[in-house]
């Protein structure tokens, strides 16, 4: 009986947490439509989540594009169709690797920092201090982060795609010697609006997942240094897993 009780308690706790997460999301977005609009906070977060992630996104995108070109060249040469390298690189980038890898990088860089920042504010009573000043802490802290993620993740993904395709060009054309014309023309003929649209949709939903999970875990941090460490780890792991799982379902629907 005790085993069943324990399982039941865990299941109930999980369902309760899912409910709490959903309410957290809805309330945070609800506060977007009530004055005052925290424009300065949103811009600050855009700078933090978006601009400050550009370097790591460019770096990872470059090497992802380059290795894709290497691997693609190896595979395509077996069928004598190296000319399709451009489309292979571009389609994998735009449809899959761009949204997923850029989002994972943003999770690691900005998401973990979000959890830690909000968690420290919770532990040191700064969130309570906001509330006592008649300032809604969700509106002041969480809503700007969510808005900033929703805007900057798609932009970072677009940057990732472009740099990745460029990296593929450098390796495929400059190093491996396929013709530049066929690289670009194969991209032009293979990539459709549907591919780009799917990538954008993915990146918006990943932006939501990152800010939602990371802010939630920070906001409800247990009141200790250990709790904060745990919350940061959990937020990165949960956000990354959710991105990959959601990616599968979204791809299967969009295909």
């Amino acid at each position: 009986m005790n085993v069943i009780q324990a399982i039941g308690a865990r299941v109930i706790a999980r369902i309760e947490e899912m409910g709490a997460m959903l309410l957290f999301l809805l309330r945070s977005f609800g506060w977007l439509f009530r004055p005052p609009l925290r424009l300065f906070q949103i811009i600050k977060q855009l700078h933090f989540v978006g601009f400050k992630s550009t370097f790591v996104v460019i770096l990872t995108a470059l090497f992802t594009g380059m290795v894709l070109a290497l691997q693609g060249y190896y595979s395509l040469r077996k069928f004598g169709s190296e000319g399709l390298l451009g489309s292979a690189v571009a389609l994998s980038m735009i449809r899959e690797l761009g949204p997923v890898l850029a989002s994972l990088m943003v999770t690691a860089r900005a998401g973990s920092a979000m959890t830690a920042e909000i968690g420290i504010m919770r532990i040191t009573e700064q969130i309570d201090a906001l509330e006592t000043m008649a300032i809604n802490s969700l509106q002041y802290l969480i809503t700007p982060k969510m808005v900033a993620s929703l805007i900057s993740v798609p932009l970072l993904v677009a940057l990732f795609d472009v740099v990745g395709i460029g990296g593929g060009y450098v390796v495929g054309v400059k190093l491996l010697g396929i013709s530049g014309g066929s690289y670009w023309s194969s991209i032009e003929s293979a990539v459709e609006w549907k591919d780009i649209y799917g990538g954008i949709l993915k990146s918006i939903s990943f932006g939501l997942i990152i800010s939602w999970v990371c802010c939630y875990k920070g906001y409800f941090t247990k009141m200790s240094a250990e709790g904060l460490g745990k919350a940061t780890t959990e937020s990165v792991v949960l956000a990354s897993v959710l991105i990959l799982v959601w990616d599968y379902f979204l791809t299967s629907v969009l295909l």
Partner: protein
Amino acid sequence: MRPSIIIQLKGVDKTLGGQAVLRGLDLGIPKGDITTIIGPSGEGKSVLLKHIIGLIRPDRGQVLVDGVDLAQIHDRELNEIRKKFSMLFQSAALFDSMNVFDNVAFPLREKRLVSESDVKKFVPEMLERVGLEDMGHKFPAELSGGMKKRAGLARALVVGPEIILFDEPTTGLDPLMAYAIHELILSMHKTFGFTGIMVSHEIPEIFSISDWVAMLKNGKILAVERSDKFQRLSDPLVREFISVPHAVEAEKSEKVEVTR
């Protein structure tokens, strides 16, 4: 004659983490005075303080501020009530992303109480009052514990609140700094005449700065009395609690004498 009551707690029950912290607590806070809540650690003194400003809502009972029950109102109305309040937190709770000046200016700017040029006038004045002139550019991480408390006090006072809550304002400070903070609270109280509610362990110092003292024990108010009368109460639990620090002090001085 008892002064008018500004905050009234009636039959407040609160269970946190499966433990009954407050059990049918009743307490009235007189307007314009400083009331200090004492009691053993872990008795829920901070929890009581957080009920008064609506950070925690009671499971049962009423928390009446000027006759409005905080347990029954929505966030928006609660925010209106909170404009009467300021709170000095145990850790001072300064925003560490901002320097001292911006921390103190924060509630003024947020509530748009005054123009930016007045902010530039009021904030340095307030910093000077708490002894932090020329510290405006420093960040909380660069301040000592006592300076943080001073900055927190400036931030609490700058909006001219009717009621200020002090959550252990001197915990973690050396005796000299604790004395300075107590003196500061007293002189600010004389200047601004707010209603003060303090949670503190500093016996016997609190008797000289408080008008009223209330003791929290087993989730209820065991006794509440004028500060001078409180010290003469005969209740054994009160006696035990307020005399323990003296006993410890006495023991310390005896030891010193022995080692000499």
